[in-house]
C-alpha cells in the first residue's frame, strides 16, 4: 500500500509538473462541428437499439471516438477499453486478456456483452470473449460505446456487468486507400491495409486486411510461450436504395496462431504439467442488415448474422457455429418513445472430448430467443422522463428469464442531469458450467484426512471440476444513481451503484466419506495395498453450484476538462467492492472478496507543427487479481507530416517495472506473464 501511495504522490507531482510545462497556445478555429454532424443520427432512434445524447441516458455510459483511439495509439480493442474509466483491463500475457467492469475479470468472464456492429461475438461454450481474436481495424472504428452496469432489458442475458458496443464507420466515409505499418519491441510487425470506393451513386464498400506478429514475454509464471500471429481480411458494404431503405453487409475471416503455455493434468500422475503449445483459431463472421425509415418518427430493422469458429490445439478441438436473427422497431408516439424487438439465436457447440475434458451434455445445440419492450415516457418534456421496459428471454438451461428495468431522468437545468436506474438481470449458466467435466491437478489425501501413513497421506487423488446441469441463472438486482454536468469546457459524470446477486457460482470439494472410511479400516487392518487400491477409485469432485450471494458496491466519477483548445484532460476515480456470502465449505468460483480502486489521468496536448502528445497514467490498488497494486504510464507522440501521412511513437508501461497484471493462474490454459515496457513506432498513410 505504501508503494501505491508513493505512486499516487508521484503521479500527482508529475501531472502538476506537466501542466506547468505545457505552453498553452490560443486556439485557431477548430472544425469540430462538421465531424460531429457526420456522426449524428437523423432520427432519435437507430437500429443499434436507441441512439440518444449521453445527457438523456440513465446509465453510466462512456464513449470513445475514433479520434480518441488514434490519439492514444490504440492497436486493439482491449487496448482501447483500457482508456475507459471503470473498465478493468488486465493483460494476462501477450495475447490473453481479462476484461470486465463492476466485477472481477477473468479469462472466461461471461457477464460483459461485446457487440461489433450489433453482432454478439461471444464464444458460446463459456459465454465470454476470446479478446485476442476480436479483430476490428481501429482506423475504421467510428466509436466504442461502453455501458457500465447491467443492461439486460435491452441487451439480453449475460449483459449484467455491462456492454461494449463497437461501431465501425459507414463505408461511405472510408472511400480511400489506407496503410498503417507498426513495429516495436513487442511486435515484430503490425500492418493494416484498407481500400474503399463507391458502388455507383448509391453505395460504397471497403476491403481491409490485418497482419500481426508478436513476440513472447521474457518472464512468466511458467516458461513463456505467448507469441502472437494473426491474419485477417474483411469487407463492409453499404447501399442506400433511397433515403429510407439501406442495406449494410460485412464479412470477416480470421486465422490466428497464439502461443500458449498449457497446464494440463497428466492422467497417470494426476498432477498438472506445463506444455508449450500453440492454439490455431479460424473464424468467419457474416452480417447483413436492412434498415427502413417508416416515417419521420419511426424506423425498423432486421438483421441476420452468423459466425463459425474452430480452435485446434493438442488434445483439444473446438467448433462453434452461431446464427442470430434480430428484428427491432423504434417509434415516437406523441412525446413518447417506444422500442420493441425480438431475437433468435442458434448455437452449435462441438468439443472433442479428450482425456482431461469430458462433455456430458445431452445436446450440443442451444437455442435462445426472446423479446423486449421499452417505453420512454416524457412526463415533463425536456425535463423529466421515465423509461420502463422488460426483456423476456428463453434459454435451454434455465427457461424463461425476465429482466425488467425502471429508469428516471430529471434535467433540472439544460446542463445538469440527475438519473436513477433500478433493474433486474440474469446471467445464464454457460455450456461449460452446465455440461463439462474437467480433470484438474489432484488433491492429496491429507487435504481431507490425516492417516499418519505418509504413503497414503501424500497420495494424489484424481480430481475433477464438474459442471452441474442443476445450477440456476444468477439473478441480479441493481440500483444506480447518477449525476451529469456538462459545461462549455468541462463535464462531470458521477454514478453510485449497488448490485446484489443470488445464485452466484461456487464450488465445493467432496470425497466419498465411505471410501475414506474404507481406507482407514484397511490401514487399521494393516492392509496398505488395499487402502491404495480404494484410493485409486476414489475421486475428489469439485462440483459447481449456484449457492453464493454477491454484493457489489461502487462509484464511478469522471471529470473531463478542456483546459485550453490545445490541452484537454480527463481525470477519473472508480471504486469496485466485491463482497461474497458463501455457504460453509464452498469456494468462490470467480474472483474473491476485494476492493479495487482505480485512478486514471489522461492528457492530450496539441504541439506546434502538427504534432501532439498524449499521456495516460493509471493506478489500480487492491488485490482482486492477486497482483497487488499496479501503476502504468503510457505516452504517445504523433506528427502529421502531411495531411495524409502521420508518424507516431508510443511507449507503453513506461515508468514502472515489469509486473504481472493478473495472477489467477488456476484457470484453464492460463499462464500469466509479466507485462513489460514496450515501444511501438507507426506510420499511417492515406491515399
Amino acid at each position, binding site marked *: 500500500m505504501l508503494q501505491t501511495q508513493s505512486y499516487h504522490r508521484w503521479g500527482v507531482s508529475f501531472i502538476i509538473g506537466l501542466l506547468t510545462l505545457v505552453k498553452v497556445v490560443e486556439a485557431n478555429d477548430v*472544425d469540430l*462541428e*462538421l465531424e460531429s*454532424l*457526420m*456522426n*449524428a*443520427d*437523423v*432520427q*432519435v432512434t*437507430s*437500429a443499434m437499439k436507441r441512439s440518444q445524447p449521453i445527457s438523456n441516458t440513465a446509465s453510466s455510459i462512456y464513449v470513445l471516438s475514433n479520434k480518441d483511439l488514434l490519439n492514444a495509439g490504440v492497436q486493439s480493442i482491449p487496448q482501447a477499453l483500457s482508456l475507459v474509466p471503470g473498465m478493468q483491463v488486465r493483460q494476462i500475457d501477450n495475447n490473453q486478456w481479462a476484461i470486465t467492469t463492476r466485477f472481477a475479470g477473468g479469462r472466461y468472464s461471461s457477464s460483459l456483452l461485446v457487440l461489433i456492429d450489433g453482432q454478439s461475438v461471444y464464444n458460446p461454450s463459456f459465454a465470454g470473449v476470446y479478446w485476442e481474436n476480436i479483430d476490428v481495424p481501429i482506423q475504421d472504428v467510428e466509436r466504442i460505446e461502453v455501458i457500465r452496469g447491467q443492461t439486460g432489458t435491452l441487451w439480453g442475458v449475460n449483459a449484467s456487468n455491462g456492454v461494449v458496443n463497437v461501431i465501425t464507420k*459507414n463505408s*461511405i*466515409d472510408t472511400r480511400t486507400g489506407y496503410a498503417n505499418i507498426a513495429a516495436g519491441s513487442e511486435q515484430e510487425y503490425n500492418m493494416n491495409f484498407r481500400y474503399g*470506393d*463507391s*458502388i*455507383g*451513386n448509391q453505395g460504397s464498400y471497403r476491403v481491409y486486411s490485418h497482419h500481426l506478429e508478436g513476440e513472447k514475454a521474457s518472464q512468466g509464471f511458467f516458461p513463456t510461450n505467448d507469441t502472437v500471429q494473426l491474419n485477417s481480411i474483411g469487407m463492409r458494404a*453499404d447501399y*442506400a436504395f433511397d*433515403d*429510407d431503405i*439501406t442495406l*449494410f453487409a460485412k464479412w470477416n475471416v480470421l486465422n490466428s496462431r497464439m502461443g500458449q503455455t498449457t497446464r494440463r493434468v497428466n492422467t497417470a500422475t494426476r498432477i498438472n504439467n506445463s506444455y508449450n503449445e500453440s492454439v490455431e483459431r479460424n473464424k468467419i463472421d457474416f452480417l447483413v442488415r436492412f*434498415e427502413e*425509415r417508416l416515417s*419521420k*418518427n419511426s*424506423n425498423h430493422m432486421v438483421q441476420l448474422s452468423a459466425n463459425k469458429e474452430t480452435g485446434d490445439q493438442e488434445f483439444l478441438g473446438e467448433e462453434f457455429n452461431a446464427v442470430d436473427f434480430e428484428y427491432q422497431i423504434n417509434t*415516437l*408516439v*406523441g*412525446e*413518447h418513445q417506444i422500442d420493441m424487438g425480438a431475437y433468435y439465436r442458434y448455437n452449435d457447440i462441438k468439443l472433442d472430448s479428450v482425456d482431461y475434458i469430458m462433455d456430458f451434455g445431452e445436446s450440443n445445440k442451444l437455442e435462445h430467443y426472446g423479446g423486449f419492450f421499452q*417505453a420512454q*415516457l*416524457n*412526463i*415533463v*418534456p425536456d425535463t*423529466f422522463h*421515465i423509461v*420502463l421496459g422488460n426483456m423476456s428471454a428463453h434459454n435451454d438451461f434455465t427457461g424463461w428469464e425476465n429482466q425488467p428495468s*425502471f429508469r*428516471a431522468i430529471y434535467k433540472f437545468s439544460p446542463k445538469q442531469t440527475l438519473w436513477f436506474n*433500478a433493474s433486474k438481470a440474469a446471467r445464464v449458466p454457460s455450456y461449460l458450467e452446465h455440461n463439462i467435466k474437467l480433470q484438474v491437478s489432484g488433491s492429496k489425501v491429507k487435504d481431507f484426512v490425516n492417516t499418519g501413513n505418509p504413503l497414503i497421506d501424500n497420495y494424489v487423488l484424481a480430481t475433477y471440476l464438474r459442471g452441474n446441469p442443476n445450477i440456476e441463472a444468477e439473478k441480479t438486482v441493481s440500483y444506480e444513481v447518477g449525476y451529469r454536468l456538462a459545461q462549455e469546457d468541462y463535464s462531470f459524470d458521477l454514478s453510485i451503484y449497488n448490485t446484489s446477486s443470488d445464485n452466484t457460482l461456487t464450488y465445493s470439494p467432496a470425497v466419498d466419506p465411505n471410501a475414506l472410511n474404507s481406507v482407514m479400516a484397511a490401514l487399521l487392518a494393516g492392509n496398505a495395498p488395499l487402502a491404495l487400491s480404494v484410493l485409486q477409485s476414489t475421486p475428489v469432485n469439485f462440483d459447481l453450484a449456484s449457492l453464493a450471494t454477491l454484493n457489489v458496491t461502487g462509484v464511478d466519477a469522471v471529470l473531463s476538462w478542456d483546459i485550453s483548445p490545445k490541452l484537454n484532460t480527463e481525470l477519473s476515480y472508480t471504486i469496485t467492492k466485491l463482497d461474497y456470502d458463501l455457504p460453509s465449505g464452498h469456494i468462490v468460483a470467480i474472483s474473491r472478496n476485494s476492493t479495487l480502486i482505480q485512478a486514471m489521468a489522461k492528457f492530450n496536448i496539441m504541439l506546434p507543427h502538427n504534432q501532439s502528445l498524449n499521456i495516460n497514467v493509471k493506478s489500480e490498488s487492491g488485490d482482486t487479481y492477486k497482483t497487488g497494486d499496479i501503476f502504468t504510464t503510457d505516452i504517445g507522440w504523433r506528427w502529421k507530416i502531411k495531411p495524409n501521412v502521420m508518424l507516431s511513437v508510443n511507449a507503453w508501461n513506461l515508468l514502472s517495472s515489469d509486473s504481472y497484471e493478473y495472477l489467477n493462474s488456476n484457470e484453464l490454459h492460463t499462464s500469466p506473464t509479466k507485462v513489460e515496457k514496450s515501444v511501438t513506432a507507426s506510420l499511417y498513410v492515406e491515399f
Partner: protein
Amino acid sequence: MSNFNNQVLASMLYKYFSSTPKIFNIKALILVLIISSAPVFGAELDRELILKSGFIYNFSRFGKWESGLINQDGFTICSPDKAFTEVAKITFYEKQVKRLPVVIEKIDVNNDLNKCNVVFVTKKYYLDWKNRVNQLGRRQVMLIGENKGFILLGGHINFFILSGKIRFEVSVSNLKKSGLKLSSKVLRLGKIHGENSHE
C-alpha cells in the same frame, strides 16, 4: 388526444411522482401511456432539419465567394420552407459567417435570389424550384438541395441519407461555374458528384 391533454396528464403524473414514494406503479404508467399515445407529430423540431442546418452552417463557413461578400451587412441564408427557416433561426442564433451576422430569410422561389448567399431547397419546394431554375442564371449563390437530380439542375450540394446519417454530394464543376469554392475540409467528407456516376 390533443397536445393540451397530454400536458395535463403529464402534469398530473408529475405531481403523482412528486408526492408519493411509490414510484413503481406500472399500471398507472401504462394507463397514461395508452391514453396519451395518440400521434402528436411535429410537436418538436425536426431533427433532420436541425442537422442539415448545421451542415449548411459549415458549408457557409468553409465556402468561398469570389466576389468576396463585399458591402454586405449580413450573411443571408434563404429557403422557401418555413419549417427550415424556423429551425435555422435557432441554429444560427448569434452565429457569424465571414465575420458577418447571419440573416435567415424565408423567400418565395419566384422572387429575386440576389439577396441570398445560400439557398436551401427542401423536398417540399423542389418542383417549384425545378420549374424556376432556368431563369436563375449564374449568380454567386450557393445552392443546396435534398433531391435526386438537384445537382443536374445546376445545384452545388445535395443532401442524402445513408444508414440514418446525413451525407452530401458536391458538384465542384457547378460551384466553379457559379464563382464559388468549397474548402477541402468539406470536400473530403462529401461525395464528389461525377465520380463513379453514370448519370
